[in-house]
């Protein structure tokens, strides 16, 4: 499982991809992933908002995560 990072999320983590494939327990849902990120990277909690996209669609907390999903961390957007 890989997490794609963009914008300030990339700066907070210090790289553009987090590779979870070697970790013992993979997050099973968007909510679990958010919890994991909050513990690992406290700076995420300072952001205005934090969304998760699964297979390039915004995903609610109860969405289940599968090993081969494309998962992205979406910090506050600021296009335009």
């Amino acid at each position, binding site marked *: 499982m890989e997490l794609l990072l*963009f914008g*300030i999320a990339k700066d907070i983590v210090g790289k553009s991809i987090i590779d979870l494939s070697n970790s013992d327990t993979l997050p099973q849902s968007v909510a679990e992933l958010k919890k994991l990120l909050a513990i690992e990277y406290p700076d995420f909690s300072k952001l205005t908002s934090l969304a998760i996209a699964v297979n390039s669609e915004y995903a609610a907390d109860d969405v289940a995560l599968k090993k081969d999903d494309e998962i992205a961390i979406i*910090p506050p*957007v*600021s*296009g335009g």
Partner: protein
Amino acid sequence: MKEPIIEIVDILNVDGVYKELSHPQSGGICVFVGTVREFTNNEEVVSLEFETYKAMAVKEMRKIADQAVEKWQLNKVVIRHAVGAKEIEEPVVVIGASSAHRDACFVACRFMIDTLKETVPIWKKEIFKNKTVWVSAHP
């Protein structure tokens, strides 16, 4: 309604957009161009840097165009956003619609740019003389 034109590009050329929106059944064409402003909160901006999650951004832009077409009678729609480094005055986004009468294209353009700013995964970094800031990241 023709297929909407949805694109993320490195260099945004706005000159041709009028032709893309031209349509025999349209009596009005409305175009909004977003450009790089020199000052943010009285601080001088040197340049902007845009990045995107392209696969998702294109999908979200398409959703916005589809919603606009559902709400208003539009003949053509363009949503095009630039990424990469942008200098002062450079265009970064162009939104356009054409319709039989002006009301529909005016209100559709407003809806599309406002929604783009809320949902499309594009991030803007402001580069000042002595710092850089990801816009809207912090409250």
